[in-house]
């Protein structure tokens, strides 16, 4: 109990004094995760729309695979990315291991199935609403996908938020591929793991509270943004 209390006080002072290290790793956490989220969304949204709209032979199989991959253990993803990016691995020449880019790659792999799966569930519903009209208007596949993505943008935002939650709190994969290098690849979660390792629970908890606060803040901000952006409540 004393740990939690001193964690809260630590978090408060870290925030109140805008501790330089804290600001740095928090910004890096945001940068890595938001970049991963942007890339993952660019992949997952069209994919979700495509499997909602198209009936191809492996559709059911693809959906099952996506659902199964939602539970992908981050540690395994991290290990695979690590082996691929290692100097002695197939993409070693790129020199990406232990850089923020490697962390982004790992997070993209972790959240794409989650985002695609959640997005698909709501886009499929939307498509069953729109099906007759869009078929009747002789729309192309591309137009159907565009329409679903635009009209389903709220649901997509929710899917992206779920992805953000998973990515920002993830530690297993980015610890392996990022290496938790101070001033280079240290983010909130790996810093928490490090402080826990040092037995400094108060500081670890403090960072944890900052992480939670940040996740809340981003969620609220995106919700607020999407409310002001659209009149009515789609």
């Amino acid at each position, binding site marked *: 109990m004393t740990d939690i209390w001193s964690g809260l006080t630590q978090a408060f002072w870290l925030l109140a004094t805008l501790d330089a290290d804290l600001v740095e790793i928090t910004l890096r956490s945001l940068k890595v995760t938001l970049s991963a989220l942007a890339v993952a969304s660019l992949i997952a949204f069209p994919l979700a729309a495509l499997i909602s709209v198209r009936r191809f032979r492996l559709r059911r199989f693809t959906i099952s695979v996506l659902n199964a991959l939602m539970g992908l253990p981050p540690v395994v993803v991290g290990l695979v990315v690590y082996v691929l990016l290692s100097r002695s691995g197939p993409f070693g020449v790129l020199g990406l291991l232990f850089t923020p880019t490697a962390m982004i790659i790992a997070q993209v792999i972790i959240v794409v199935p989650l985002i695609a799966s959640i997005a698909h569930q709501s886009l499929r519903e939307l498509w069953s*609403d729109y099906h007759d009209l869009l078929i*009747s208007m*002789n729309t192309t596949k591309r137009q159907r996908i565009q*329409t679903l993505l635009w*009209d389903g943008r709220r649901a997509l935002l929710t899917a992206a938020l779920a992805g953000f939650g998973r990515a920002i709190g993830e530690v297993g994969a980015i610890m392996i591929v990022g290496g938790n290098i101070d001033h280079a690849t240290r983010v909130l979660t790996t810093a928490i793991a490090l402080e826990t390792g040092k037995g400094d629970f108060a500081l670890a908890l403090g960072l944890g509270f900052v992480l939670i606060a940040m996740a809340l803040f981003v969620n609220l901000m995106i919700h607020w943004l999407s409310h002001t952006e659209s009149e*009515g409540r*789609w």
Partner: protein
Amino acid sequence: MTMFPLIAKGATVRRRGKVLVGPVDLTLGQTGTTMVIGPNGAGKTTLLKLLHCIERMNGGTLDWACPVAEAQQRQAFVFQTPVMLRRNVRDNIAYPLLLTKTPRAEARARAEDWAGRVGLGDAVMRPAHLLSGGERQKLALARALIRAPEVLFLDEPCASLDGRATREIEEILLGVAARGTRIIMSTHNMGQAQRLGSEVIFVLGGRIHEYSPAQDFFAEPQTEQARAFLRGDIVE
């Protein structure tokens, strides 16, 4: 190039082993307003969708005088439960124009014009899902008409509307027909069928039971079933 005549030969729609419509043998000409009538479950909706080529056929042939894609481009379909795109009224109506690469500003201006013509002028910026049943039908109608279709399909457009809204829709349809649009619609309202129709297709059990000019049909139905249906009896 004209789309007509439409020629169907033995066209059949089967789902899960059950025949929903067909075999249909039908030739539709260029002019007139066609009323599709018949009891619930007779296959009116499926027949309309079949003619519009959005229902998969399991047998027979159905040919417009031009390629299917082109025919669809020149037709419009208003569904019994109108599909409301998750946008405001103006953007719903403008949607078909945006598909054909009309500049956004122009598409929106024309949509607002159409909204006014169907009596939705005050509602252009409202989210479409907040509209009442009658307003939704008007929106769907405007969205169909903005494409200037040569053929307009309507599936019971006034099914759940009150007398006033029904009358407003009918007036719009009469105007459209007067400008030469070929209307093919289903209805349960015999008064409406007489007011609007120039010919009648009587559907029963998925088959076209009778196809004749409206005057003849309502004055002197050819079959016992049609007479029973017009009397309001139950027909199988």
